[in-house]
């Protein structure tokens, strides 16, 4: 078997560590004829969406992965083999990040083992010392044939000896080795930028940086032939990168939106509840009898909602609006949702379908296959009551606030500094700082894991 898959690639989604974008890495990989790229950002899967797109464009396969630095100093690369393992990896990251607070990740061996089913784990050792041997034995015990040991050249004294000892260690622990390259940038020229980024991270100047710079600076993507040449003594380790890439079948394409079940609906499906609410609501809206035009619109919309499975989402928005109305909090749906007769009879929007011709397809359509979103503005002084009710009802782990970060052009009138100041202390609590501060958007986002 010839060829090579580079399994440890750090993109600039590892903030201030990687310097190349996913697109640059993938196009370089395509140029070099690499079979696959394993994107392993530090404690993050943030880069894989772009990587998924780039993989589709360039034809180089994406191996989804993540690099973890555990609390005891061990470095692990984890690759989910299937959809369920990907879910476990996400949960593992959520756990570590929730524990450590902003910007950090605090995980231990036990956590990795608890979530480790279906994950391929590659230990990235430093020196072939007792610590590494202990970690490797533990990895072999917990992960069996899904454990690997990474061999990477560092261009230091005794490099060949180090790899030799590491591969002996792996043989003793019955763990297979894999040649990886620990890529930080796609092109050797990026080494300068890498040093600059390191200085920004460490808060020092380039003259003071000293050994905080990447001392093993040879971290660009390599052609398969070069890897074969560099690892001439360990051809099986080079070939094994393809084996791992082959075992990792998970693709982002396997992900779909999974909307959670709406609470308080025993014994009936969400669609049934929604239909009941709609006809009740319609009777209230039109006390003198529902016009035929509206009945037809409602039937049409209900059919589409059932077909696409969006009923629980309408129930959620309805529950929030009902709560706000019960407390006398002013609220009003806006945007494309106003094209829906269903939203009108549920009391979410205020455009009467009898008097105007609504274009429901602007809101939900079979062709777009995009989950709908309903924007509702709440009275800004009492918005907090609604937010707290959402937390109490759905739980803090299941509710999130979204902030949109708008990219501004660097014109003097709207300099980023000005913008940050404007949206700084008061608005920084997670509302949408770039739109009206009184609006709260609920989007149909599901639980990914």
């Amino acid at each position, binding site marked *: 078997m010839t060829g090579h898959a580079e399994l440890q690639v750090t993109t600039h989604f590892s903030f201030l560590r990687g310097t190349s974008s996913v697109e640059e890495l993938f196009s370089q990989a395509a140029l070099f004829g690499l079979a696959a790229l394993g994107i392993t950002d530090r404690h993050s899967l943030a880069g894989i969406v772009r990587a998924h797109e780039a993989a589709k464009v360039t034809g180089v396969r994406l191996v989804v992965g993540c690099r973890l630095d555990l609390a005891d100093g061990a470095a692990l690369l984890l690759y989910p083999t299937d959809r369920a393992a990907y879910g476990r990896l996400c949960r593992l990251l959520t756990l570590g990040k929730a524990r450590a607070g902003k910007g950090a990740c605090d995980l231990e061996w036990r956590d990795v083992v608890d979530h480790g089913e279906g994950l391929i784990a590659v230990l990235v050792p430093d*020196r072939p010392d007792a610590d590494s041997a202990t970690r490797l034995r533990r990895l072999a015990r917990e992960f069996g044939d899904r454990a690997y040991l990474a061999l990477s050249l560092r*261009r*230091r*004294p*005794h*490099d*060949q*000896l180090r790899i030799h000892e590491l591969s002996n260690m792996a043989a003793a622990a019955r763990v297979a080795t894999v040649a990886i390259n620990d890529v930080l940038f796609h092109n*050797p020229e990026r*080494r*300068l930028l890498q*040093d600059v980024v390191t200085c920004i991270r460490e808060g020092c100047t*380039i*003259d003071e*940086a*000293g*050994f*905080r710079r990447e*001392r*093993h*600076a*040879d971290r660009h993507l390599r052609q398969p032939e070069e890897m074969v*040449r*560099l690892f001439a003594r360990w051809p099986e380790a080079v070939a094994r990168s393809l084996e791992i890439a082959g075992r990792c079948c998970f693709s982002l394409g396997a992900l779909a939106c999974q909307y959670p079940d709406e609470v308080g609906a025993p014994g009936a499906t969400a669609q049934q509840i929604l239909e009941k609410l709609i006809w009740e609501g319609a009777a209230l809206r039109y006390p003198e009898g529902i016009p035929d035009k509206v009945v037809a619109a409602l039937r049409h919309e209900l059919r589409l909602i059932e077909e696409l499975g969006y009923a629980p989402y309408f129930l959620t928005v309805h529950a929030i609006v009902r709560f706000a109305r019960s407390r006398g909090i002013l609220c009003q749906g806006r945007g494309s949702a106003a094209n829906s007769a269903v939203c009108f009879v549920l009391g979410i929007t205020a455009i009467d379908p009898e008097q105007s011709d609504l274009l429901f397809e602007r809101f939900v359509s079979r062709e777009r296959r995009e989950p709908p979103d309903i924007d509702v503005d709440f009275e800004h002084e009492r918005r907090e009551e609604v937010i707290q009710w959402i937390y109490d009802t759905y739980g803090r782990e299941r509710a999130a606030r979204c902030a949109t970060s708008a990219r501004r052009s660097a014109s003097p009138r709207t300099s980023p500094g000005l913008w940050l100041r404007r949206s700084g202390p008061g608005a920084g609590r997670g509302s949408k700082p770039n739109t009206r501060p009184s609006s709260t958007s609920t989007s149909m986002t599901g639980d990914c894991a």
Partner: protein
Amino acid sequence: MADTRGAAHALARFAPEPAAIAAPGRAEAALAPLPLAGLRLDADCVDRLRRLGFATIADLAAVPRASLALRFGPAPGCRLDQAFGRLAEPLQPYCPPELIRVRCAFAEPIAASERHVEKLAEALCPLLDRRGLGARRLDLLFHRVDGMVQAIRAGTAKPVRDANRLARLLVDRLETIDPGFGIEAMALAASLAEPLVPRQGDILGGEGASDVSALIDALVNRLGPRRLYRAAPVESDLPERSVTTVPPLDPPVRVRWPEHWPRPSRLLSPPEPVDAVALLPDHPPAHFTWRGVRRRIKRADGPERVFGEWWRSDAEIRAVRDYFIVEDENGERFWLFRSGDGEDPASGDLRWYVHGVFA
């Protein structure tokens, strides 16, 4: 800057260049275009001269001295001669008033003598003691009968208040003083002093860590300030930049070189080119010729790749060196490097150098 005080004064204040330097003996030419105000005459005198049409120093230097002295007294002629170096002008050392200083004058001119230096040092130490200070730098001035001043300067690595030690530092240098026709006064000043807090002694009376500062002071004062140093590591991948020198008693440097990285005991500066035959790009040479001796390589380790420090110069942006530790048939070990990574011609010209020798 000039070779006389008067010329330097004028150049510093009135020369058009920000840093004017007059070569020795060229003061006259350099001062010629400068205004009269540069001559250190009083303002009234300058004013009167200007009214008579003298604008520059050259104008004044051109008129006969006798008539000048008749009208303005001796000052203009004297200042001109001082500026042009025709008249000696001894420099009076400037002493700040708070300087800790002792002085003794002699009834008869004497030669420089150790006894008097010791006496001065003994007189200085109580003054230092009273202020809780120790001397870091001493200036001993000898005022000769002919008005010249000669000086000895001695520095210490740590603040010192011990009269014997201070005296010894000065006495070591006494032979550099030329007494001329005799010395009529001597002054000793601690021109740099730092707080010296008395330390509690060991309760058992034993000496703690032995204090080598006295030895260092004696050596530094005899050899010169930069001759005595300690080597300290620097965080640089380039071997020639990975060492610096620090003063002997500086606190230990926190920087450490990485462990487990063998480095030669002797680094050649600069690296010496060798003729070598090697397989590109990953292999050490099979043999190399250095200083006329051909050596066949038995064992080797490498490459250790060292990149240029790109922020220092453009030439280093792409420069790469691949270092190899090699052992020849006699068991001698060398540190060779190839300039260039063996693949990209921009990274180096592929020539081989020996950079160090292992003991």
